[in-house]
């Protein structure tokens, strides 16, 4: 009798390919794409609404509706055209070299976002909410700045390597400390990381106005990083692409291996799905919490080094910018899967790069990126919402 129950409950065998096919047919694989589309749609509405021509033509919409429609088209098309030119290829440029600058900018922007996103993905899959990307990036950046500026005793490449390691270590310690607190006192990591972000921001500000401040600078910022501590450029001085991009690709592979193929990642995932079963199976929960947060923080710290030693080349108060939040959205959009995170990171890098052009050419404030980005996450997180927007059938689970 119990056999009957079993056949009802167990799933049909699902191979890798048929799983993919089913995802495509039921639209699960389409959701991220549609979420991005829907968000751009919302962004377009905002752009149109804020456009002065649109507002002006709206006044006589009923007399000449065509005016307003063309104004809407121009504003939205203009903005997204600028976005494309700023992020992928600028076809207005005189030569290929100048045109492709946009793409390299996208890749440069995507480097810290993706690396920090990988860190978040590791934490998410291990059941920990690391909201502390901002703080960990800052501490990592400060660490590598100290080595780069004040410990110049090593010859060139070694100086750079040690500076990067210091950044990784800084992030790992700052993140690991949260894991340590959670393991020993049960402190909720969400609260602690949020608080640590602010503590890090104020510590950074304090440091940049006191001991780390460049002697002659009027703003709170450090001295420029010396050449031998910088990420080597990949495509010459005209392009922002640096070795950090390769490091990012390596990090993607490393995280994939860690989470899917290593025993450490096995324990991370087990902890994420069921801490008490992991405990009973002999996993040292406290140490694993620490390790997860340390790895997550280390990646955030690495992201910090790519900012300081690769892109900005000095330490300023804006080092973490919005990367802490970007990392969360990238990890969510990429479903905490390393390759997905890479794709999401490049998408958001493109948004950042393109937004600059959009602001300069079309007068669309860069803040539109925040809106689009958070809309993407909202849609991703709520597939039923996307389905209803695009009139798709309900998923199998929802029907059941």
């Amino acid at each position, binding site marked *: 009798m119990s056999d009957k129950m079993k056949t009802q409950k167990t799933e049909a065998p699902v191979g890798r390919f048929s799983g993919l096919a089913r995802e495509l047919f039921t639209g699960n694989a389409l959701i991220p794409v549609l979420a991005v589309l829907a968000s751009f749609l919302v962004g377009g509405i905002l752009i149109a609404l*804020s456009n002065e021509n649109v507002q002006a033509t709206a006044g006589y919409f009923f007399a000449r509706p065509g005016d307003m429609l063309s104004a809407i088209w121009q504003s939205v098309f203009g903005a997204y055209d600028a976005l494309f030119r700023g992020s992928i290829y600028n076809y207005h440029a005189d030569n290929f070299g100048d045109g492709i600058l946009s793409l390299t900018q996208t890749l440069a922007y995507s480097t810290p976002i993706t690396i920090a996103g990988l860190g978040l993905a590791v934490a998410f899959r291990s059941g920990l909410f690391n909201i502390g990307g901002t703080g960990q990036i800052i501490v990592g950046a400060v660490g590598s700045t100290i080595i780069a500026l004040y410990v110049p005793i090593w010859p060139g490449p070694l100086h750079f390597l040690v500076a990067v390691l210091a950044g990784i270590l800084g992030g790992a310690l700052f993140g690991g400390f949260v894991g340590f607190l959670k393991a020993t006192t049960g402190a909720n990591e*969400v*609260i602690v990381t949020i608080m640590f972000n*602010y503590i890090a921001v104020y510590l950074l500000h*304090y440091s940049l106005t006191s001991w780390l401040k460049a002697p002659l600078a009027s703003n709170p910022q450090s001295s420029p990083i010396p050449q031998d501590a910088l990420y080597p450029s990949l495509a010459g001085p005209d392009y922002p692409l640096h070795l950090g991009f390769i490091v990012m690709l390596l990090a993607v592979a490393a995280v994939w291996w860690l989470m899917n193929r290593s025993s450490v990642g096995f324990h991370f995932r087990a902890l994420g799905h069921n801490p008490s079963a992991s405990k009973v199976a002999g996993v040292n929960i406290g140490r694993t919490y620490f390790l997860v947060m340390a790895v997550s923080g280390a990646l955030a710290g690495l992201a910090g080094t790519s900012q300081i030693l690769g892109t900005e080349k000095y330490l300023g108060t804006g080092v973490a910018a919005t990367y802490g939040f970007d990392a969360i959205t990238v990890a969510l959009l990429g479903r905490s899967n390393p390759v997905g995170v890479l794709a999401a990171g490049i998408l958001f890098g493109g948004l950042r790069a393109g937004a600059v052009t959009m602001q300069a050419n079309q007068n669309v404030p860069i*803040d539109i*990126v925040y809106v689009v980005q958070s809309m993407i996450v*909202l849609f991703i*997180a709520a597939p039923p919402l996307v389905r209803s927007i695009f009139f798709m059938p309900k998923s199998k689970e929802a029907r059941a």
Partner: protein
Amino acid sequence: MKTLKRGAIRVPIILSVLTLITLWVAAIAPGGETTIQINSNATATGAAGEAFRFANIITSTAFSAWLTFGLTLLATALAWWFALTGRVASRWLSIGFGVVFVFNILISLFNGQTMTITALLHGSLSLAVPLIFGSLAGVLSERVGLVNIAIEGQLLAGAFVSAMVATLVQNPWVGLIGAMVAGAFVSWLLAVFAIRYVVDQIIIGVVLNVLVIGLTNFMFSTFMSANSQVFNAPPRLPSFDVPGLAQIPVIGPVFFSQTPIVYLMYVAVIGVWFALYKTRWGLRLRAVGEYPKAADTVGIKVYATRYRSVMIGGALAGLGGAFFTIGQSLAFGKEMTNGAGYIALAALIFGRWNPIYAAFAGLLFGFAENLQYSLSTVGSHVPSDFLLMLPYVLTVVLVAGLVGKVTGPAAAGKAYIKS
């Protein structure tokens, strides 16, 4: 000796450490004098003025520092005595210690200057208003089972909408209503995604904050800043004295000569407390936050209760946001809440999900923030960054368990799925 309960000596140990700090402060106290002015400056008070004034106290800074050190030493000794004889020390001992401790540090910082008590408190209250409203939003949301990371977004939306609406209709009261609607709307979004779409509440909170920042920044840049006379010059809510109460020395000018938003806040704190613990509404609300299924089985509508409570909270947070703009006659500025929502979250945890305690925690954090301004005006050399950090550090210390185990409502953060 009787077996000591673990943790019984926690308080005396902490007090001992803090006493060492007071000793250090006393030892390095500068040789000048500090003037302590208790009442408000006569010119700054409302028309009625305080009923009577205390004389200014001029004291040797070093003497005061040593005196306060002596008091803290005494309190610590008492705490040890209580702990070792197995008695429970009164909470007032810790509170009294805290006041003396703060005084000890302040007096050294204000060396050679005038420390105006009412000004310190008044400034603290002002900065605490949004924090307290925000923490009430948190209380109403978490008590019903939804973690509210989006307080920041609710405050910011309130600030933005109140400034714009008040300017457009040239009426600050309508702006207040707009703020409440805006805050409630953000919390409605939180509830929809958390309840209907079962999205993780922390994710949705973080994302909503960024969405509100993005939207307000975008609108600020596209039309608000360019036409600030049309969109962003809110009229001020007139402040007024509460007859009678405003004349009470010290308390009057601090608490009862304020804008209506502050009075609304008093009402809100007491009201939320009363509603939570003394009414049917509150009992059901808390039941939903502790064990939604149990509430469901006695016919309480879990989802409706959650929506309602979260949105009322959002409306309160909106009021808190309005304090940034029409409460102080300021135009809206990009990201002007500047993390107040996260401090409100901290105050909520500090206040153990109780509206009254959370309000006091908000005051404490407001005090820390205000200190930074007061000290910079007297030219103190304590880096303001460290004072600004204080609420966050305190919260980490708290959740890491130094002050005891902090647990919120049992079902907070967990989606309730009806089958």
